[in-house]
């Protein structure tokens, strides 16, 4: 078996896609096609200020200056956790039982390098495979298709022919007249002609969005993602990425801004998914956590245990899962990081089993043997 399966990330055919986005949104969601949206937060999200263990008295000792004051924690959740106040939309989801945070998770990756950590999370194998991602192995198994909202295929989706990419153009769109002339010119070139009409379909579905303001970037991507996922015969899963989480300095302001961007984008995603929200599971993960103790520059450094956020109409939320390891010095991993008590890959395998009906054995195999958990994640 070739460990680097042939990637042809941009090649899958869009021939089945429908051109009329308006018709698509009026269709009821089909329970038979559960959708999955995989979001990677690159740079290591600080989970301790996202799903905040407000009950743990060690937190204020570890983080005397960057910890949020008690009165700011206005979004309480199960077991004494609080959701960061910037995550307003996500908190509504929580109350609607469509947000399920899982605390103290880890991928099992041992080094604290971002890039390797991300590659590991995306590949899902004990030895990183740059050309084979867990999500593409899952779609191969189910004969599903995927779209990466990216300029090139991320590792998570490498290794399958059924993956497309979409990214809003930074270039000015050409005139319709030019596209028409090209279509005419390509009439004897089947390959180019079918790609061009697919490209025009993609533009139609996403209303030809351009990437303009930097602030609105994630929201733009999320909107396009939702639109593509709710077109007729749309792909079964999508991947989004959001960077900027490496908060070594001045964490409070930066994290607040980042979480707001994420929260706003997710709200747009939900809106553009329309009725498909009901059968969608969103998974939000990051490569590793950050140090439990704040550093000398009002930030945190690379750590180990982090949190996983599951969301969407298909998710049985309104709870907080994961065993809390505690933040006392002896409870920390290497006396510095949140100790992971469960495996990110096991949660992913469990979700794939329940959401996409992948056999337990096969789900485990997707992640080089990560065992499934008993917990019910999908409603």
């Amino acid at each position: 078996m070739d460990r680097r399966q042939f990637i042809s990330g941009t090649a899958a055919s869009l021939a089945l896609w429908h051109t009329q986005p308006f018709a698509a949104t009026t269709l009821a969601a089909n329970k038979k096609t559960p959708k999955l949206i995989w979001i990677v937060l690159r740079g290591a999200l600080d989970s301790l200020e996202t799903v905040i263990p407000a009950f743990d008295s060690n937190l204020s000792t570890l983080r005397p200056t960057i910890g949020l004051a008690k009165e700011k924690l206005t979004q309480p959740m199960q077991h004494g956790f609080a959701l960061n106040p910037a995550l307003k939309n996500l908190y509504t989801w929580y109350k609607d039982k469509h947000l399920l945070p899982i605390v103290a998770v880890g991928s099992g990756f041992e080094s604290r390098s971002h890039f390797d950590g991300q590659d590991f999370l995306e590949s899902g194998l004990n030895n990183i495979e740059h050309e084979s991602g867990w999500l593409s192995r899952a779609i191969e198994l189910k004969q599903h298709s995927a779209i990466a909202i990216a300029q090139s295929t991320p590792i998570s989706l490498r290794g399958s022919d059924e993956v497309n990419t979409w990214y809003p153009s930074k270039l000015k769109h050409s005139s319709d007249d030019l596209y028409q002339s090209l279509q005419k010119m390509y009439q004897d070139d089947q390959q180019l002609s079918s790609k061009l009409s697919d490209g025009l379909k993609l533009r139609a579905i996403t209303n030809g969005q351009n990437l303009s303001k930097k602030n609105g970037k994630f929201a733009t991507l999320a909107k396009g993602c939702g639109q593509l996922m709710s077109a007729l015969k749309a792909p079964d899963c999508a991947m989004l990425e959001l960077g900027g989480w490496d908060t070594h300095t001045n964490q409070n302001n930066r994290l607040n801004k980042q979480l707001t961007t994420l929260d706003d984008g997710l709200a747009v995603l939900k809106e553009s998914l329309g009725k498909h929200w009901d059968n969608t599971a969103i998974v939000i993960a990051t490569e590793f956590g950050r140090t439990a103790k704040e550093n000398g520059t009002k930030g945190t450094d690379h750590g180990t245990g982090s949190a996983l956020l599951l969301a969407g109409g298909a998710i049985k939320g309104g709870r907080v899962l994961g065993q809390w390891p505690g933040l006392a010095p002896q409870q920390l991993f290497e006396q510095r990081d949140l100790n992971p008590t469960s495996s990110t890959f096991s949660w992913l395998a469990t979700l794939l089993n329940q959401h996409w009906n992948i056999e337990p054995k096969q789900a485990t195999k997707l992640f080089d043997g990560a065992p499934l958990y008993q917990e019910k994640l999908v409603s």
Partner: protein
Amino acid sequence: MKITTPALIAANRFGYGASHQQLLRANQNPKSWLKQQLTPVIFDSSLPSQEQMAQYVTEHRRNKKALGKKYKRSSEHVQAIRQLMADSSIQAVSMDNSISWRLLDFFSNHFSVTAKGAKMSAFAPTLEREAIGPNLLGSFNDLLMSVIKHPAMLIYLNNEKSAGNHSKLARKGKGLNENLAREILELHTMGVNSGYNQNDVIALANGISGWSVKRPKKSKSGGFTFLRAAHEPGNQTLLGDSYRQQGVEQGEAMLERLAKHPATVSYICRKIVTHFISDDPDPVLVNKLITRWQQTNGNIKQVMFALIDAQESWLPAQNKFKTPRDFVISSLRLLDSKPKNTQMIIRTLSLLGQGPFKAGSPAGYGDTMSHWDGANALMTRIDWAAKLANARNAKKMSGVEPQLMALMSSRNYTMVMRAESRQQSLTLALMSPEFQRR
């Protein structure tokens, strides 16, 4: 004088295209015109070396630590990285020995290193200038040796930290890292599923343990160093042969063996044909390259001569779809348009999905049509072509007309000439099937 099909093939299939004058020269004898172009690639010699970049990186780390938030990377450093990353693309736009720059691109992608993080961003673009370029037309063995010993490769695939499990450094908690050894076998030499196994990977990793990089803090110079204390002592068995050397020679002997292994020869010859001629390489053509390789002890220039000599390379059907890099460079050449600055070329290539030194995998970028003809990618190509056509002085269009007439079907040429504006006419030409393929 009319430009002939073989001249167009010589310029476009083997190179990045050529000017009208050059094509007239190619008309007379396309094969010898091409062979004469197999000359060394020459980079901008004012740009810093890997050793100089290593000093930048050390300073960068030191200042970042000392200044914390207030620290800003020196613009000189940032500028140097950009220039290094863009240099080979910029040279390829203007140089006449186009086939040699294509060959450089081939081997640079064969030995792909990715610019990720402060260190690799500074080092990745130095590999092709320092290890690949100088050995491009010599023996594959020399090329391989110099690539594997280059700091960019040693650091990219973590060999600089590897220590044999029975070496002195192993007692200090260091261990063997198989990363580079595995990729040498799988990507650089024999290719996957070609008869080696995990024991061979370990034997090679042991053989090259201690192949490391001088630390600029300690020694004034950077570059390759052999750390005896990290080298795994004892004999190694690779592919059934025993290697009894007890130092840097052990790994060298192993690489020498791998460079001429039959699996390596056929793997690389097939890859060359895939790159230049067809996604589905003709075995007859591949065999011609293999034979020349064996006759010349792996002389790359001679192997390229075999490719040029073979009639199978000159079939009129255009079987290769240009990669974004090929498309951008050949478009700029067609319009005789030099990239305005380093940022322009880097941004353009990234936008089209093939940022320099950004493959993100030691396997490099894909080299067949299916990697590049995605719907979204095609739309981006069209919009970029339109932007380029709009930005340039439309008067120059007349200079490329004879070439387009020779290249394109009469139907498509008529469409180009009847477009509503010169800009649109040029966009159509750049996006025509005849220009998108080679």
